[in-house]
């Protein structure tokens, strides 16, 4: 999921990455709505709210919403900055660091809410801001490494794309186009995962409350851990292949030497 970059990624890589990250984004969004009464992966709504607050002259609220939008922007900036500066030499690491940052943000929010949250407005504003930063990181990462094929928190664009794809599939030539079929699979898997994440989070929140943040972190750890395992696995296989090749060449060399000695 995280090992490959841009055009070297397969459809399966993008579906796996999209599904797991969209599931965690859906969970984060629902928990933030239930706990803080603010969306954390729906930035389109924040732009509308910002405009409304400015029109009403509520400058404090306008400032808070503007800061939230900026933090989402900063999240995208951070992840893409890490990727473009370190991708050449440390591909996996440059993709894993943004996920680690996201996990850290969510762990801070989860732990703070569990042990210290006194429900003041200032705390709510900061925690929502941190979650928006985490979602910005995630969206920036998935969009960056998949060449914009996967955007896990961008459901407005996704729904528009799905509408367009379904209208295109009314024609046979588009239905048989493997690229378009692949795109449909990615979009559908993201939509289903986001929704299932939200439903799961809602249910979990009602039963085990704030622990839902730790479950989201667990999902993100799977994303990192799966690729780390794959990297280590391929490294081991390559080493074994290399070793067996070396053994083979040594065997051939010894055999040839024997033949030469016999002839002599």
């Amino acid at each position, binding site marked *: 999921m995280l090992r490959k970059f841009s055009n070297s990624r397969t459809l399966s890589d993008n579906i796996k990455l999209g599904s797991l990250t969209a599931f965690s984004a859906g969970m984060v969004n629902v928990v933030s709505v239930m706990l803080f009464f603010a969306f954390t992966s729906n930035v389109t709504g924040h732009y509308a709210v910002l405009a409304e607050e400015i029109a009403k002259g509520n400058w*404090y609220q306008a400032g808070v919403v503007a800061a939230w939008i900026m933090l989402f922007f900063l999240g995208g900036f951070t992840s893409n900055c890490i990727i473009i500066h370190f991708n050449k030499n440390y591909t996996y690491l440059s993709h894993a660091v943004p996920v680690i940052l996201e996990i850290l943000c969510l762990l801070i929010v989860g732990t703070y809410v569990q042990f210290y949250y006194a429900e003041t*407005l200032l705390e709510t504003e900061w925690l929502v801001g941190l979650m928006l930063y985490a979602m910005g990181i995630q969206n920036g990462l998935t969009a960056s490494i998949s060449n914009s094929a996967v955007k896990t928190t961008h459901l407005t664009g996704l729904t528009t794309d799905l509408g367009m794809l379904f209208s295109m599939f009314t024609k046979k030539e588009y239905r048989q186009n493997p690229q378009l079929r692949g795109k449909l699979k990615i979009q559908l898997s993201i939509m289903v995962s986001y929704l299932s994440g939200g439903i799961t989070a809602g249910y979990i929140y009602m039963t085990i409350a704030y622990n839902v943040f730790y479950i989201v972190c667990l999902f993100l750890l799977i994303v990192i851990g799966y690729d780390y395992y794959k990297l280590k696995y391929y490294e081991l296989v390559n080493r074994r292949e290399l070793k067996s090749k070396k053994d083979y060449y040594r065997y051939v060399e010894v055999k040839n030497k024997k033949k030469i000695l016999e002839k002599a």
Partner: protein
Amino acid sequence: MKIKLMYFGVIVLLFGIVITLVANDVNPERKLIGKWEEVMWKYEKLDSSEDNVFDSFRINEQLKQEISRELVIHKAETWEIMPDGAVVLHKKDGSSEQLYWRLKGRGHVLKLFGHGDSLEHYQIQKLTDETLEIHFNSDLQARGIIKMTFEKAKN
């Protein structure tokens, strides 16, 4: 070097705008503190007689009591919102009840709790030094939003 300065400048400018906006207005938590007297209850949709269409949003006392029966603010005429997170609901008969309040979201959701398991959330539509307007969604009779307007007590 120039590009770094430009990036730094843009970040400072954006955060400067946010800080200026926040610093030049009062936090909704502080705006809310004080004594608020109820002046009006209105409904978004209300069953009304055909000859009284223009007054369909206003409700009578009996209907108000019926709809607010399940709410903790039931029969409260004046809300006294304290800075320590407590809210005292002064009722018509002179009695009072203490609950707790918190603001959520960007300061647009008022949460009231402390009345058994009851937990109520009101949308703050307008909050100025003089006026407080909150909405509550109800599925009882009126099928829509209850709009409650308060004015700040002078004392």
